């Protein structure tokens, strides 16, 4: 066990970092906010942490500063964009993410240009990361089950109805958006201190794909989705072997297949299977949106 842990420390840490990143997008999507800004903030937070750590700020302090400071740009971006709906917001936040990469390539000495920053002081403490992970997960769980969290779900299902029963829709959208950016920044900060390097490629289009793979794979509906998705995405390459150079294609294929055949994600599939198993043959077919074809 100890030996196994020694061999896989970095993958275990990566899993937790990616779960946080996946949370940042899942949280937004669950409330019907098509925001991928968390991915951009992963890069922003990563670079900020790297810049601080290289200048001698201790790792834990850098993480704390960056995570807290992310609230401000996150909220500013939310004020700017949270009004946008659906595809517009998705497009604007993807553009924002690509922009971070442009600024990173042009940042000169501060960001190290196209080469990026490296030999950043290593600080990745598994117990601390586990604590962060657990706290974030409990928070996500509470957010899901609380009155407020259910309000967020209503936001996704029917914004007009939510508005009519007195929900401040715009305020909630901004909140979700900002929380997503903070989670993204936290994840990026931990990433940099684990891998001790970051370059503009880190926050490119590919990371958007990876993040969306995790979220769609697990399912948008619940916080367990991103956990399952991140675990699969992080651990799959370990067992891919010679197929590794096709890893991107495999992720892509997974996303397409899930989107086509299990739009609620693997967690929902497992849950349904579990229920079916327990209720036996007499079970009525479950009234899930999944199997009802859309009339148009």
């Amino acid at each position, binding site marked *: 066990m100890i030996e196994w842990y020694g061999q896989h420390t970095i993958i275990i840490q990566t899993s937790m970092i990616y779960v946080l990143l996946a949370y940042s997008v899942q949280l937004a999507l669950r409330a019907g906010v098509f925001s991928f800004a968390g991915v951009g903030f992963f890069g922003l937070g990563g670079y900020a942490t790297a810049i601080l750590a290289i200048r001698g700020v201790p790792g834990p302090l850098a993480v704390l500063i960056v995570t807290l400071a992310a609230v401000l740009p996150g909220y500013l971006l939310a004020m700017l964009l949270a009004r946008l709906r659906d595809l517009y917001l998705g*497009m*604007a936040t993807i*553009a924002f993410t690509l922009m971070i990469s442009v600024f990173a390539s042009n940042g000169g000495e501060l960001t190290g240009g196209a080469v990026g920053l490296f030999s950043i002081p290593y600080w990745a403490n598994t117990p601390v990361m586990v604590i962060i992970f657990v706290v974030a997960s409990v928070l996500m769980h509470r957010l899901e089950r609380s009155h407020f969290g259910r309000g967020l779900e209503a936001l996704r299902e029917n914004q007009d109805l939510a508005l009519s029963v007195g929900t401040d829709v715009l305020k909630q959208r901004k909140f979700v958006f900002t929380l997503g950016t903070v989670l993204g920044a936290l994840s990026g900060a931990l990433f940099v201190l684990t891998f001790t390097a970051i370059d503009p490629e880190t926050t490119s289009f590919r990371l*958007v794909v990876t993040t969306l793979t995790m979220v769609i794979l697990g399912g948008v509906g619940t916080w367990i989705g991103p956990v399952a998705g991140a675990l699969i995405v992080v651990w799959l390459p370990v067992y891919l072997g010679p197929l590794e150079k096709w*890893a991107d294609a495999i992720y892509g294929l997974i996303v*397409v297949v899930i*989107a*086509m055949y299990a739009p609620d994600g693997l967690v929902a599939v497992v849950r349904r299977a579990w229920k079916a198993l327990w209720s036996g043959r007499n079970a009525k077919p479950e009234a899930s949106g999944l199997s009802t074809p*859309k009339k148009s």
Partner: protein
Amino acid sequence: MQQVINALTLGSIYLLFSLGLTLAWGTLKVLNLAHGAVFVFASLIGFLVTHKFGLSFPLVVGLGMLGAGLLTLLIDAIVFKRIRQISRDERQAELLMLAASLGVAAILASVTRNLTLESHNFGLTPQTFTTIPYFFGPIRVTNMQFMIVFLGVGLVVALALWIRYSRAGRALRALAYDPATCGLMGVNPTSLSAIAMFIAGAMAGLAGILLTVYLGAIGPEAGDSLMLKAFSIIVLGGVGSVWGALVGAMFLAAAESIVLNFTAGGYVDAIAFGMIILVLLIRPRGIIPAEKADRV
């Protein structure tokens, strides 16, 4: 004046690329994030057929357009069609199609990288197309530039006329407005969306081949930065508006040329993003809004 010619050429490439995207988004409500990958895929076809068989230029253009068009058609017929059928509501369909197209993009990018053997940039064989420069006083215009501008502007006019006056174009506009009634009126949404997607892909393919010849070679990531530019063009011009795309593409190309002229040029890609933010803040419907309201 030379700068104007160059900007016009660049703008025509942008235009060819964004037309397909705006067409699919405006009429079928698909933000096809695989559009950039399809564009690169056409260049890949050009790269492969010229290096293996030494085909002539018109054939390469034809094959590239056909390949890119069929590819987009297949994505629509296999993936998007299924997603439209299983989705609970329009928002879920939009998210799933966004995710699936991102997955397709990842697959295509991976194929491109592996087929070009990681050689970073790839192009057609030099003998495929002979660039002939013409001089008008101090101004240099190549036959390629003539062709790009001619095709770009020519296709825009053709497409605008087609959408405005042809039976299929009228049906397409109706489909954007009210798909349900459209079905009652005997419009076949499946074949219509197939036509639209084929046109969208073929134009991206044309842009891909032309840009590859114009620049000599492109990299597998060329599609990503074009996506960012196309976003800003679509937002500036208004989703679904053909003329808007024309104005947006030329405006972006002009702005980029000016910035390139007066600065070191690293931030050229930032203009597109700045434009998105600015337009969304000041005039969210774009400068030439299409007839349809309720977009943002």
